[in-house]
């Protein structure tokens, strides 16, 4: 989604992958270990763990401090407004998901919310739909693939993007490609706008995850494994559209961290 970053991290990821190699399959005479291996479905686990550590280092040095400063410096109404705008901008992706999954009720909600929030809500700053009890929801292509019956494929950890699977990463690439904002025209202003949007999405998402991340780092004996399990559970919850009442539209789509993105604190 961010060319310069992918140019840096693409080759780095490849090198790490080659260095770290693949996970060792348990021997065939241990059926339970073998079943656990299949359920984890993490054939590149050593490489994924290395990338997870890379992400931890980047996060502690850069992302987390920025997210904390963002929360400290901007008052809650401003952060709420930013989250609402970013969520509103995700409408095309969400609507495509609703439609491809054949969920017309949710498609109508998404459309209605977009019209009302973009106009009365001043470009999406105010979530007017929510005040009338038409709550937002998230969708993405990975979820649509799942609804169509596609399996999740192997697990992956991508720095800056977080936990994902072969299916969800493919879906994410399609979501980026089908986003009208990455299609219309070219030029300096548009590039600047897109970078701002992507940057704000990263900061807003990380801010939403400050507490859950802290908790996992504090309480888990193996944060990598905890995150892998939480991601899968959270995704199946999202795929079944079981989001709780406090949910808001996650600007980055399903963050899959075992909780829904909510109003800023």
């Amino acid at each position, binding site marked *: 989604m961010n060319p310069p970053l992918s140019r840096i991290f693409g080759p780095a990821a490849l090198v790490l992958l080659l260095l770290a190699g693949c996970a060792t399959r348990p021997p065939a005479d241990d059926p*339970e270990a073998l079943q656990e291996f299949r359920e984890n479905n993490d054939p590149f686990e050593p490489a994924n763990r290395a990338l997870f550590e890379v992400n931890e280092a980047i996060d502690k040095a850069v992302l987390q401090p920025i997210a904390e400063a963002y929360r400290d410096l901007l008052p809650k109404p401003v952060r709420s407004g930013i989250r609402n705008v970013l969520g509103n901008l995700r409408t095309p992706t969400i609507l495509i998901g609703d439609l491809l999954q054949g969920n017309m009720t949710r498609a109508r909600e998404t459309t209605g919310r977009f019209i009302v929030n973009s106009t009365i809500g001043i470009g999406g700053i105010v979530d007017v739909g929510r005040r009338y009890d038409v709550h937002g929801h998230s969708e993405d292509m990975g979820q649509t693939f799942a609804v169509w019956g596609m399996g999740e494929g192997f697990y992956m950890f991508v720095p800056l993007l977080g936990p994902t699977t072969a299916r969800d990463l493919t879906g994410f690439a399609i979501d980026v490609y089908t986003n009208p904002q990455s299609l219309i025209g070219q030029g300096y202003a548009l590039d600047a706008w897109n970078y701002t949007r992507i940057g704000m999405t990263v900061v807003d998402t990380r801010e939403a995850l400050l507490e859950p991340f802290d908790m996992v780092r504090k309480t888990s*004996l193996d944060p990598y494994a905890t995150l892998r399990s939480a991601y899968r559970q*959270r995704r199946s919850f999202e795929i079944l559209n079981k989001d709780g009442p*406090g949910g*808001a539209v996650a600007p980055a789509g399903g963050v899959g961290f075992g909780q*829904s993105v909510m109003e800023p604190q």
Partner: protein
Amino acid sequence: MREFKLSRRLLLAGLIGLAGTKAQAQQMDITRATAFVDKAGQDLVNAINDPRLNQAQRRDKVAGILRSAIDIEGTGRFILGRHVRQASPAELQDYLKLFDEIIIRNLSARFGEYRGVRFSLGRSQQRTEEDALVSTLVERPNNPAFTLDWRVAEINGQPRVVDVIAEGTSLRLTTRSEYAAVIQRNGGRVASLLDAMRGQIAQLAAREGG
């Protein structure tokens, strides 16, 4: 209907008695499960919001309520999973003691932060023959509400919590993956998990100041 249920339970109990096995999980009645969660939840909320308690007292009170509401041994065994059989009796005993301490410390610390919390019952549903899933809504001032589901099983004739599920993420499933990974990455030794758990308790104790 009620009589039928009762007699079926008696029959079941009789059969189990005859077979001479120790049954841990029996059929869970949804009304009882709901009443149980309601009571435990209200007790927790009252302890968390009690202005007469200082932080240490509050933590102790919350820990006491959690200890009587959760089936710690059953949950601990579920989480250790297939490694229960690998563990020596002494290791298993150590593990259950450490697990008790970690789960109570973690949950008390987390719930202890929820000052001003309110809690209400949501829709309830029976899930399997063995346990019931009771859905609740947790509300805090200046925070969006979230759903917390409690899996309740009948343990030795009493309803007990065997899992909490926050917005789709089950605590016991996540912890099972975590512990399995620690064991697997340390040559399949349960002892390595016990070491890691001891280290964690020391850290938690240091942070709480005691």
